[in-house]
């Protein structure tokens, strides 16, 4: 045996690793989080944590002396829900009295209670086992008394003692964020990372304060809290996403998570982005798809085994546990449906009465079940476009963000129901919605945050850039702009028949409406010249664009 100890693996990054920016991008959702770092020069990628998860469940579970964080914690929801904490992000910065009664109790989390000592502070109470105090080491002091020598046999460690632990919402968020940052640190082999973290548009200033505090307490240096739409804009204006898309385009971001739908209509103009309109609702989300799917498989179980199973809602404890098991299992089913056109299975060991279950669902059937959710998304899109007075045909690109937006059926339903142009750009049409890939909706936000973090870290920390840096602080100035109301372009006259009410020739928009000023555009295009009289003429026009429907 060798006498020199060989380290069992090392957390130090590769030599290339050391030149990568010490930045982590964090997509902090209410149900799932994801983290991105630079894996190569200029390439930000969503990375898996130590458990191999890229979508990390926002859950912390206390089980005896153990603490589970992430997807392992969600497994505790079957039998240990009262010591398992979920849904904590949305409670950040809220007073106890501000939380609706209906949110205090849930079968999917430990209850939210009033903190015993801090007024109007929400908290959680969990049962843990505290390690028993270790026995005192044998005294090394010489004793004046002749007592029998103490036994050298190890004193058996006493049993850990049950105890109650109270955690504030802030502490729970800090614990969770710390585990995310630790995964990124282990990956990069560096400590003291700067972070850009997503924040839902609906968060109040108090909630943003609370998020910033929870992150700072977790030991990260917060470079920027980024609106989810902003994080998406970073990714979708980067070269790997947009190389083939027009630099000036109107983009609709569809973020469908578990418990909410956020829509944002953006004007993207040569990389500069601003919001034209947005909406947010908590009445549409993946949770509703889950309910339908759980009921579907429960009915199938009953059909196959003749064992009754009433779920969503479940009343007795056996049914509640079966529902919790199905809820865990369908995460896999949904991901399979998104990833491949074939059927997807759902398997649960000992679903109820000790009986195992395996069932399957094909995409057609799945889309039928999910149809009401797809339709609700389409309705919300139509309402948003109407409020913004933007015709669906003027939307150039659909961007999908959030886990439930990975479903191809949603893209199909949306394009037909909301009336987008057939050739509207979508990551599904480009074929980039591949697990972990460029268009994967579950990676868009974290990658955007990492890219933004690296950009901010590149701004020199000197006096000349003081104002520039200040613009990125919360409430930063310099982002209010004037934007054009109409498109200005050139018309190259041609011999074609004039469309009624339109202009003859070829119209080339140059500065699109909704472009922030000052703006500069340089365009290049080919012209045909007559051999006998080579001449070029063009007219500069400002126009109101409209859509012609060809019948």
């Amino acid at each position, binding site marked *: 045996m060798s006498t020199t100890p060989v380290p069992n693996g090392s957390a130090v990054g590769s030599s290339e690793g050391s030149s990568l920016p010490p930045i982590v991008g964090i997509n902090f959702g209410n149900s799932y989080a994801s983290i991105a770092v630079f894996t190569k020069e200029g390439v930000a990628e969503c990375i898996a944590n130590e458990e191999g998860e890229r979508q990390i469940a926002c859950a912390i579970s206390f089980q005896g002396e153990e603490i589970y964080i992430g997807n392992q914690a969600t497994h505790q929801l079957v039998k240990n829900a009262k010591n398992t904490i979920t849904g904590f992000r949305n409670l950040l910065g809220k007073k106890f009295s501000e939380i609706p009664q209906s949110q205090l109790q849930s079968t999917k989390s430990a209850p939210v209670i009033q903190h015993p000592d801090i007024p109007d502070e929400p908290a959680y109470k969990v049962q843990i086992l505290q390690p028993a105090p270790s026995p005192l080491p044998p005294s090394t002091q010489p004793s004046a008394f002749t007592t029998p020598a103490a036994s050298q046999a190890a004193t058996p460690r006493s049993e850990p003692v049950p105890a109650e632990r109270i955690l504030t919402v802030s502490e729970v968020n800090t614990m969770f964020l710390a585990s995310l940052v630790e995964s990124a640190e282990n990956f990069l082999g560096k400590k003291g990372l700067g972070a850009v973290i997503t924040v839902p548009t609906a968060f109040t200033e108090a909630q943003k304060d609370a998020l910033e505090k929870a992150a700072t307490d977790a030991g990260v240096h917060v470079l920027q809290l980024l609106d989810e739409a*902003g994080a998406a804009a970073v990714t979708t204006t980067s070269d790997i996403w947009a190389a083939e898309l027009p630099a000036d385009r109107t983009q609709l971001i569809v973020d469908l998570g578990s418990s909410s739908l956020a829509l944002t209509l953006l004007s993207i103009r040569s990389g500069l982005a601003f919001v034209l309109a947005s909406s947010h609702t908590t009445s549409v989300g993946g949770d509703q798809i889950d309910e339908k799917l759980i009921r579907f498989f429960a009915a199938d179980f009953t059909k196959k085994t003749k064992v009754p199973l009433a779920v969503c809602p479940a009343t007795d404890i056996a049914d509640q546990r079966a529902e919790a098991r199905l809820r865990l299992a369908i995460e896999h089913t949904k991901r399979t449906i998104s990833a491949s056109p074939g059927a997807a299975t759902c398997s649960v060991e000992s679903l109820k009465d000790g009986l195992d279950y395996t069932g399957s669902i094909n995409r057609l059937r799945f889309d039928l079940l999910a149809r009401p959710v797809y339709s609700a998304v389409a309705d919300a899109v139509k309402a948003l476009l109407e409020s913004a007075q933007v015709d669906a045909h003027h939307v150039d690109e659909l961007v999908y963000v959030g886990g439930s937006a990975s479903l191809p059926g949603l893209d199909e339903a949306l394009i037909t129901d909301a009336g987008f142009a057939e050739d509207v750009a979508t990551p599904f049409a480009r074929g980039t919605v591949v697990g972990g890939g460029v268009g994967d909706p579950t990676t868009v936000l974290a990658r955007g945050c990492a890219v933004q973090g690296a950009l901010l870290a590149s701004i020199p920390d000197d006096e000349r850039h003081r104002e520039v840096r200040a613009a990125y602080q919360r409430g930063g100035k310099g982002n*209010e702009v004037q*934007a054009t109301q109409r498109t200005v372009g050139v018309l190259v006259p*041609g*011999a074609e028949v004039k469309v009624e009410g339109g202009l003859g*020739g070829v119209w080339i928009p140059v500065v699109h409406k909704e472009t922030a000023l000052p703006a500069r555009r340089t365009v290049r295009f080919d012209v045909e010249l007559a051999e006998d009289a080579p001449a*070029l003429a063009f007219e500069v026009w400002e126009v109101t664009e409209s859509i012609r429907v060809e019948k």
Partner: protein
Amino acid sequence: MATIQTLPITAPVLPKGYTPPAASSSSRLSAPHPTGHRVLLPVGQAHLNHLKLALHHAHDFDSFDAHLA
């Protein structure tokens, strides 16, 4: 330097006898949306350039180009 957008367009031959239309002397570009009606998302390289153009180059593209060169 400004990026040049190459458009997939071929403009047609100028029709014979083309005469440019007369623009009325009073025609002006429409006023933009007022300041503050639109708020830039503080993200991305283009935004950083926009800030530098405003704060360090008084909105002068040529001056910013010279700085980048």
